């Protein structure tokens, strides 16, 4: 038996398996797309709530920043949304790359994700403390007549902070695992070069 015959037999055996049922595949794809859209909507809603909180804090006179914080927050949100939209468009192009370059791109993304997660769980409490210190030193926070409002805002702010730290920790753990696995795959792939 020649090598070509052996190859043909391997291909024949490999491709002899039964065809999968594709009747519901397109429906599943549509459902998956809707689920992803719902998740995106939820994230935007959460970010929208934070925006409302920030704008309300400034508009109600709780902070003497004259709209500056709202401007910074909304600008950051807009830039983030534009970046996310651009990443989404390039995601399908990335999967069409060859496997080596794809692994490199994914490793870079995982590292970026890990950095962002670290900013979230380490940076937000530091930022919150720094913000608190600044409000105390510069007296931009208006206290007195709206104590209950101030307490409500503080509680909401603290809850958001805890959520952001928690999300940051979980995301960092996932990104670290992803980075380890992708790096191992890349090294194993390149080993035979």
């Amino acid at each position, binding site marked *: 038996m020649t090598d070509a015959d052996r190859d043909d037999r391997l291909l024949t055996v490999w491709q002899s398996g039964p065809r999968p049922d594709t009747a519901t595949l397109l429906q599943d794809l549509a459902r998956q797309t809707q689920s992803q859209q719902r998740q995106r909507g939820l994230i935007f809603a959460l970010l929208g709530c934070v925006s409302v909180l920030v704008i309300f804090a400034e508009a109600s006179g709780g902070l003497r920043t004259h709209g500056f914080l709202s401007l910074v927050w909304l600008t950051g949100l807009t830039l983030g949304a534009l970046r996310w939209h651009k990443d989404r468009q390039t995601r399908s192009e990335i999967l069409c790359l060859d496997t080596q370059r794809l692994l490199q791109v994914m490793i870079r993304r995982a590292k970026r994700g890990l950095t962002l997660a670290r900013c979230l769980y380490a940076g937000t409490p530091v930022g919150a403390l720094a913000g608190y210190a600044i409000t105390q030193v510069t007296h931009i926070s208006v206290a007195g007549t709206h104590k209950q409002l101030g307490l409500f805002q503080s509680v909401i702010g603290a809850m958001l902070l805890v959520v952001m730290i928690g999300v940051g920790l979980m995301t960092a753990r996932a990104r670290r*695992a992803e980075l380890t696995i992708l790096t191992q795959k890349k090294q*194993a792939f390149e080993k*035979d070069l």
Partner: protein
Amino acid sequence: MSAVSRMEEIVETHAAMVRRIASVYEHHRDRVDDLAQEVWIAVWRAVPHLQSEASLKAYIARIAQNVCVTHVRRAVRQRTEPLSQALSDALTDSAPPVEEVIFQSQRLRNLLEAVRVLPDGLKPVASLFLEGLSIDEIAVALGISNANASVRLHRAKAALRLSLGDSS
């Protein structure tokens, strides 16, 4: 032809190939189905950008390979489920007589297991070769030279023959 009709045609033609490639990287049937679905989502997004129909099979095989190589969400799980349940579930859908199903199942099972235990550097080459892609197409898909692809394919075939035994 509408985008949906085109996608239906593509799915009908290449669903088996996508599933086979996914089976190399996952054991349990549900996970194979999940992985195959991820591949189809990626294909759905990528197909509008495809330049030439002639390379559609290689294009989809490359996307499938890339999705499977880079799926890391389940990579940390212990793969302890036996192959037999997944494979028998897949094979009981077909019409052939039981003897033929078992015979095919055993051969296919052995070949699938042999591909799964290949080193990470050889697994993609082997799975693309078994789908009928040429050396040139394999090299482009993996981002390696033709010479490198040939060497890896030679090693992969040698490893497969050793696992399966020349007599089969």
